[in-house]
């Protein structure tokens, strides 16, 4: 549309600005809250301009963890962030590897019950963690994987969504490419590694962003598996901090931690945004 309608443009921009405000204001508040001393923050009304303590508070959150009266053994955010990173990256990478391989098998190999297996994978879309949580917990517990990284990651690692996405992508790869590779003498895995994976890079990037954030935001599963503070994720820890009964909350440090928890997913999105959009929109053939 090259037609210019100033009023429509203006309304459009107003809606966008309002949406940005709604999304950004709570984050702004969190940053502000993290930049005051606890006394400064406790005044009413709450200050809306930044204070001077941002670095002190985040450093405290990072290395000491918020102190609470009545709750002992605060875990410093650096440990929690590390756990979250391990979990989110393992889930994202694991999902991509498994989905690439299963999509490869489903698209390029003729084996008995191929369609049956595809639909079985597809049906698991209807069974997210929340639905199968009790049997899954039982299995993980029986395997002795409670309070381990394996236990945190493994049950979340299969992905019907990613399998489906890669399947769709593989089906758009022209048959001639497969045949050319066969004549060139590339075996199936060689073709997979030399041709399919490089062609899928943008889809892989898109999947990585989506699955990293999915892994980062996991709450229910780590809540069950990680009873040891050593294995807690940051999302889980923030949730626990503000639910301690009758506690005195060190709000600026908690907010500092919340801001820290936001940073990695934001960084991933910012760094991979270009590829992410390409992967969902473009088809490079």
């Amino acid at each position, binding site marked *: 549309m090259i037609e210019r309608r100033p009023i429509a443009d203006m309304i459009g921009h107003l809606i966008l600005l309002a949406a940005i405000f709604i999304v950004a204001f709570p984050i702004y508040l969190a940053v502000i809250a993290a930049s005051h001393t606890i006394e400064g923050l406790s005044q009413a009304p709450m200050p809306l301009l930044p204070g001077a303590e941002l670095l002190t508070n985040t450093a405290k959150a990072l290395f000491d963890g918020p102190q609470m009266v009545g709750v002992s053994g605060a875990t410093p955010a650096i440990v929690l962030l590390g756990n979250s990173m391990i979990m989110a990256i393992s889930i994202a990478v694991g999902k991509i590897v498994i989905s690439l391989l299963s999509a490869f098998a489903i698209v390029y190999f003729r084996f008995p019950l191929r369609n049956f297996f595809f639909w079985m994978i597809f049906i698991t879309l209807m069974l997210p963690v929340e639905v199968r949580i009790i049997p899954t917990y039982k299995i993980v517990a029986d395997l002795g994987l409670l309070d381990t990284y394996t236990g945190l990651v493994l049950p979340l690692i299969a992905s019907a969504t990613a399998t489906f996405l890669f399947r769709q992508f593989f089906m758009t790869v*022209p048959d*001639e*490419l497969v*045949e*050319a*590779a*066969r*004549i*060139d*003498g*590339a075996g199936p895995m*060689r073709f997979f590694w*030399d*041709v399919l994976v*490089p*062609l899928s*890079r943008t889809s892989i990037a898109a999947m990585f962003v989506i699955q990293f954030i999915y892994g980062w935001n996991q709450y229910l599963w780590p809540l069950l598996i990680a009873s040891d503070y050593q294995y807690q994720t940051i999302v889980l820890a923030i949730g626990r901090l503000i639910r301690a009964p009758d506690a005195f909350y060190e709000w600026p440090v908690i907010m500092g931690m919340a801001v820290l928890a936001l940073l990695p997913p934001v960084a991933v999105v910012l760094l991979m945004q270009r590829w992410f959009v390409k992967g969902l929109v473009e088809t*490079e*053939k």
Partner: protein
Amino acid sequence: MAKVSLQGVKKNYGSIRVIHGVDIEIKDGEFIVIVGPSGCGKSTLLRMIAGLEAITEGSIGIGDRVVNDIEPRDRDIAMVFQNYALYPHMSVFENISYGLRIRGMSKADIQKRVDRAADILQLQPYLQRRPRELSGGQRQRVAMGRAIVREPSVFLFDEPLSNLDAKLRVQMRLEIKRLHQQLGVTSIYVTHDQVEAMTLADRLIVMNQGRAEQIGSPAEVYSNPATTYVGGFIGSPPMNFVPCKVEAGQAVLDDGTSLALPERLRGTPAGAYILGIRPENMHVAQPGQGAQFTLAVDVAEELGADTLLHGKIAGTDVVVRLPSTAGFHDNSRPSLVADMAQVHLYDRESGRNIH
């Protein structure tokens, strides 16, 4: 380099037979073109030679071995695809050398072979580019480069020029011909374009519904089509077919026009036939020669040197190619004589040439 032999090659898809048995011995260094309309099985046949399709019956031999159960990579062939099938994420150099790298050839040897192919195909300036940064003709050349560096005993081309525009197609056609002369490798080329087929082939295989209707040199196929199908497919405009009856050495058309058959057809038993005659084998009757028939022209198509006259002879649509200097146009009624030495008689039922 190698000969290729097809013996009783058949192909079924489920219960449907798409190739009904093809036999041919292709000589070492020969350029064979398989031509036919879409769906005639020409690509399937080529893909069976390449090893991309399984053979239902019969056998295919390359060189001295039967390759029925040999993987494409071990058949010592190279194939050029219609849509080029270049790896989009690799540079031209990587595309051309991929097969060699898989075979574990040394870097120096790869470099040497790629350089040579790039010289032949004038691809030197583009070796570091990606396929999407190339024009259609350049991509086509990369696809050929990929085939050349393998130094195969057989080249297979699957409609390699049909994605190019008309001008480029003519140019690439010439380059393929030149390449074949230079390398002398046995080549099998599939196309639906009869001009490509005629100009490139040492021998043609004209396919129709899974059968090889005629195998022969372009001149042979053109001047002596084995069936009405071949006559109608090869040649532009195609051969004219007029129903006739043969009586005592004469071909009598439906309107009573009587044409004297040449020596070789005199002995034809009486009966109903189809008379086949090429558009250029009818000429303007000279004074005193006596017109054999008069053409009622509907439309005249001016081609420059020649004019195509569309009209009716004895109620059948025909096309006549005359020099433009003869000066006929729409609604002309030229008197014509047929060059009877060039006519063919075909069986009405089977469409086969009566020799």
